[in-house]
């Protein structure tokens, strides 16, 4: 696979995961409960993992 294609796929995948995490936070808020709160916290953790993954190659 070409390097540019790989990069494009990676960026797309990361954008989709970030959008999914954001959607999860918004949708899980509509119902009150510990389970939904844990889902929201997991989505927040997912966003932080994405941030760490993006930052890893710059360390």
């Amino acid at each position, binding site marked *: 696979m070409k390097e540019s294609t790989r990069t494009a796929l990676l960026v797309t995948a990361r954008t989709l995961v970030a959008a999914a*995490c*954001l959607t999860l*936070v*918004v949708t*899980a*808020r*509509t119902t*009150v*409960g*510990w389970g*939904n*709160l844990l889902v*929201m*916290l997991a*989505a*927040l*953790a997912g*966003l*932080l*993992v994405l*941030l*760490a993954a993006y*930052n890893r190659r*710059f*360390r």
Partner: protein
Amino acid sequence: MTTLSTPTPPPGSTNHASKSAPVGGSSRRGTRGPARRRGNTRFVLACLLPALVLFAVFMVVPTMNVFRMSFYTWSGFSPDKRFVGLDNFSRLLDDEQFVRAFQNTVALLVVVTVVTMGMGLFLAAIMTRQRLRGRNLYRFILYIPNVLSVVVIAAVFSAVYDQENGLLNSTLRLLSLDGLQQVWLGDQKLVVYSVAIAMVWQSLGYYMVLYMASMSSIPEELYEASALDGASAARQFFAITLPLIWQNLRTTLTFFIMSAVNLSFVLVRAMTGGGPDGSSEVLLSYMYKQAYTNSSYGYGMAIGVVIFAFSFLVSLLVSRATRREPLQF
């Protein structure tokens, strides 16, 4: 590769000056060095002492007191305090209102951070890179909300969201979009996002100015060189701008966490009071309500401990996730 070394005298020659000077010098340093160092240490400690005392009195002691009081049940007024151990924390597990406040806080933290940071970066990049006419005016207009008191902003947005005469619903009516009219501060599903919009509006200008300050210090030659290599504006943003303002981004991420917890409290108190039916309650407003309105000071402090732990943990994780060597340019 060149290395610097002490020149050695030629064999057979005697160099009294070079031999005697270090001995004399080291003996002087040997007698005066430790005393001077002790004096310096005392001076540094004396300079630090007022700040340390203030920090201990106004930060450490109250924080420890919050932790201590979370193990007591106390009305906040009577002299009777009763030690209940972890009972306040176990009560949290069955408190649906606490869970709702926690969910609202997390939602505000994520949504406001993503939207404000995205818009702030976008606007800062446009204002810095594009030679917009009147960009100082735009910057001034966007920065104004940050100068206003949060209570004034709450009043402004309460007027904008007013169901009958508010700017939002009136505009929708004017555009014949009556179906889109909402009770912006009265709908349990919408109210948190109405508060979120006010938070974004309040802080956008501040973060935009912070990012602009970093971006304007990036040398123009870097952009010129990349443009010669055929880099697009987006490519320049992700390959040059973003890495070179990274330290600023890290700092603002911590600000976002703090403001999501603190600013949301003030806006919620002033705009909705936690309503309707507690649906816009955030952690800090719920803690305030329990500690000072509901006469459950100990329970409120248990919520305070959760807020402390949550803010601390998220800040720590953000700091670790974004850590990198600062680039010199």
